[in-house]
C-alpha cells in the first residue's frame, strides 16, 4: 500500500469512527428543535476530541502508555479504581446504546422488531471482537461508515436557505418555546456526542495494537486533525438537513426513522439505502470499539495482557471482560428500555466523565521524562487548559441539567 493510500485510509477510518449513535440522535434532535443554533457545541466538542485524541495518541506513540496506564500511574490505585469503575459503567451504557442503535437500524431496514435483533447483534459484536483482525475491523467499518456522506449530498439537494443556516449557526439563540435549561441540556448532549471517552481509549490503545512509535506521530496527527473535524462536519450535516425539513413541521425527533426523512425527501430510496448502510456501519463499529475499549481499560488498570493482536487464549482475562460487557449491555437493552433515551443519557454522562480520562493524559503529555521532545507545546497546552476548564464546567453543569430538564423532555 502506498503511503498516500495508507494516510487516506487512516483519515477515512477516523471519520467513520467519529460518528456513532450519539451523533446521529443528538444532531437529528438538535436540528429539528433548535435549528443550527447548537452548531457551536458540535464545533467545540470536535475540537476537544481532536485535542484530546492527538494528545492521547502522542502519549501512546512516544511513551508507550495507553490511557488507563496513564490513569493508574498518575492517579494512584484508589482514584484510578473509581475512575475505572465509572468509565466502565459509562462504556456499558454507551455499548447498550450502540447495540440498540444497530438493532433499530435493522428494524428500519427489515421491519422486524429491534428486540429480535438485539441478541443477534450482540453475538456478532462479540464475534468481531473475538476473531476479526483489528485492522479489518477499523478499515471495513470505517469505509462503510463513509456512506453517511449522503447527508452532505442531501443537504445540497435540498437547496436550503444557506444564508439562514449560516446565520443560525453564527448567531446562536434559544428557539421560541424552549427553555434555557433544555437548550443547554442539548448543548451538552451534542458536545458529549462528539467528545466520547471510549473513542479516545480506543484510539490510544489502538495505537499500541498497531505498534505506533515516534515515526507514526505525523500519520496519527493527520488522522486526528483531519479525520475528526471531517466527522464533526458530518454531524453538522446531519443537523443541517433537519432544519429545512423537520423544523418547520415541528417534528420532535425521538426515533431514528425520523432522522432519515430529510434524506428521503432529497435523495429518495437510493439515499435511504446509503443512510441505512452508514448508520449500520457507524453504530456497529462503535459497538465493537466500545467493547474493546472497555476490555482495554480494565486490563490496563490491572496490568493484564490485552489486545486483538493476541489470540484469545493469550489474553483470556481481556476477552472475558469483553464477553461480559457484551452480555451485560445486551441484557440491558433487552429490558425494552428505549435505546434513544439510553443514547441521550450516555452522551450526557459521557460529557460529564471526560475529565476522568482527559486529566491524566494531559499530565503525561506534559511530562518531559516521558515525552522527550514530543512534550506538549504552548499551543497544545493553551488549548488543553481551555478545554480542561470547559470540560470541568460541563461536568458540574451536567447532573443539574439532567434533572431540571428530565433528560430533555
Amino acid at each position: 500500500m502506498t503511503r498516500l493510500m495508507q494516510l487516506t485510509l487512516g483519515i477515512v477510518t477516523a471519520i467513520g469512527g467519529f460518528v456513532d449513535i450519539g451523533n446521529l440522535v443528538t444532531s437529528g434532535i438538535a436540528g429539528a428543535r433548535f435549528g443550527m443554533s447548537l452548531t457551536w457545541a458540535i464545533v467545540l466538542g470536535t475540537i476537544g476530541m481532536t485535542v484530546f485524541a492527538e494528545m492521547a495518541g502522542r502519549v501512546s506513540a512516544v511513551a508507550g502508555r495507553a490511557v488507563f496506564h496513564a490513569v493508574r500511574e498518575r492517579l494512584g490505585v484508589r482514584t484510578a479504581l473509581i475512575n475505572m469503575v465509572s468509565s466502565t459503567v459509562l462504556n456499558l451504557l454507551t455499548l447498550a446504546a450502540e447495540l440498540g442503535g444497530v438493532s433499530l437500524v435493522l428494524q428500519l431496514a427489515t421491519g422486524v422488531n429491534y428486540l429480535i435483533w438485539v441478541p443477534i447483534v450482540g453475538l456478532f459484536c462479540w464475534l468481531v471482537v473475538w476473531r476479526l483482525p483489528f485492522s479489518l475491523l477499523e478499515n471495513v467499518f470505517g469505509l462503510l461508515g463513509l456512506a453517511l456522506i449522503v447527508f452532505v449530498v442531501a443537504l445540497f439537494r435540498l437547496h436550503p436557505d444557506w444564508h439562514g443556516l449560516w446565520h443560525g449557526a453564527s448567531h446562536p439563540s434559544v428557539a421560541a418555546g424552549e427553555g434555557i435549561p433544555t437548550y443547554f441540556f442539548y448543548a451538552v448532549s451534542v458536545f458529549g456526542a462528539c467528545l466520547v471517552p471510549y473513542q479516545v481509549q480506543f484510539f490510544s490503545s489502538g495505537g499500541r495494537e498497531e505498534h505506533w512509535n515516534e515515526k507514526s506521530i505525523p500519520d496519527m496527527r493527520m488522522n486526528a486533525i483531519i479525520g475528526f473535524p471531517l466527522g464533526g462536519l458530518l454531524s453538522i450535516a446531519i443537523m443541517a438537513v433537519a432544519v429545512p425539513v423537520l423544523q418547520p413541521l415541528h417534528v420532535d425527533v425521538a426515533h431514528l426513522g425520523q432522522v432519515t426523512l430529510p434524506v428521503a425527501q432529497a435523495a429518495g430510496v437510493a439515499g435511504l439505502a446509503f443512510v441505512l448502510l452508514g448508520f449500520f456501519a457507524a453504530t456497529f463499529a462503535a459497538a465493537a470499539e466500545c467493547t474493546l475499549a472497555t476490555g482495554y481499560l480494565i486490563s490496563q488498570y490491572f496490568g493484564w495482557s490485552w489486545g486483538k493482536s493476541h489470540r484469545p487464549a493469550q489474553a483470556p482475562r481481556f476477552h472475558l471482560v469483553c464477553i461480559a460487557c457484551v452480555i451485560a449491555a445486551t441484557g440491558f437493552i433487552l429490558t425494552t428500555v428505549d435505546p434513544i433515551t439510553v443514547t441521550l443519557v450516555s452522551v450526557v454522562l459521557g460529557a460529564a466523565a471526560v475529565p476522568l480520562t482527559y486529566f491524566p493524559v494531559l499530565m503525561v503529555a506534559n511530562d518531559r521524562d516521558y515525552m522527550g521532545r514530543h512534550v506538549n507545546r504552548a499551543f497544545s497546552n493553551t488549548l488543553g487548559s481551555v478545554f480542561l476548564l470547559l470540560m470541568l464546567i460541563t461536568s458540574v453543569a451536567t447532573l443539574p441539567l439532567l434533572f431540571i430538564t428530565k433528560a430533555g423532555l
Partner: protein
Amino acid sequence: MLAGCVSPAINADGYRGKVSQSAKKMVGLVNAARLAAQLDLDGKMLHTITDNVVTDAEKDAQSVLSSLDSVQPPDESSIKLRSNADDVLQQAASQLADLRIAVRRRDQPSMRSTLGDLGKTLADVQHVQDVT
C-alpha cells in the same frame, strides 16, 4: 420518551399549558407521519421506514393522550377545554392508526384519503394549540 410525568395537582393555567404542549407534540407527530406517507406515495421511501415512522407516530400519539388524561382538570373551564381538546387529539390519533393500517396494507388510495383527513385534523390540532 413522551409518557411519564404525571403531575396530579395543577391550576387552570398549568392545565392550559399542558393541553397546549400535548397539541404541539401531536402536530409534530402528525407532520412526521404525513411527510413519511407522502414521500412513500412519491416513491421516495423504503416501505419499512414509512411503516416505522407512522407506527412510531401512532404509538407516541397514544402516549400523548394518556399522559394528558392522567392530569386532573382543576376547574369547570378546564373540563370544557379538556373535552374539546380530547376530541381533536383522539381524532388525530385514530387517523394515525388508519394511516398505519393503510401503509401496512400498501393501500395507496386509502393512504391518500387518510392523508387528506389528517390535513384537516392538523388544522384543528393547531387551533387547539393556538387558543390555549
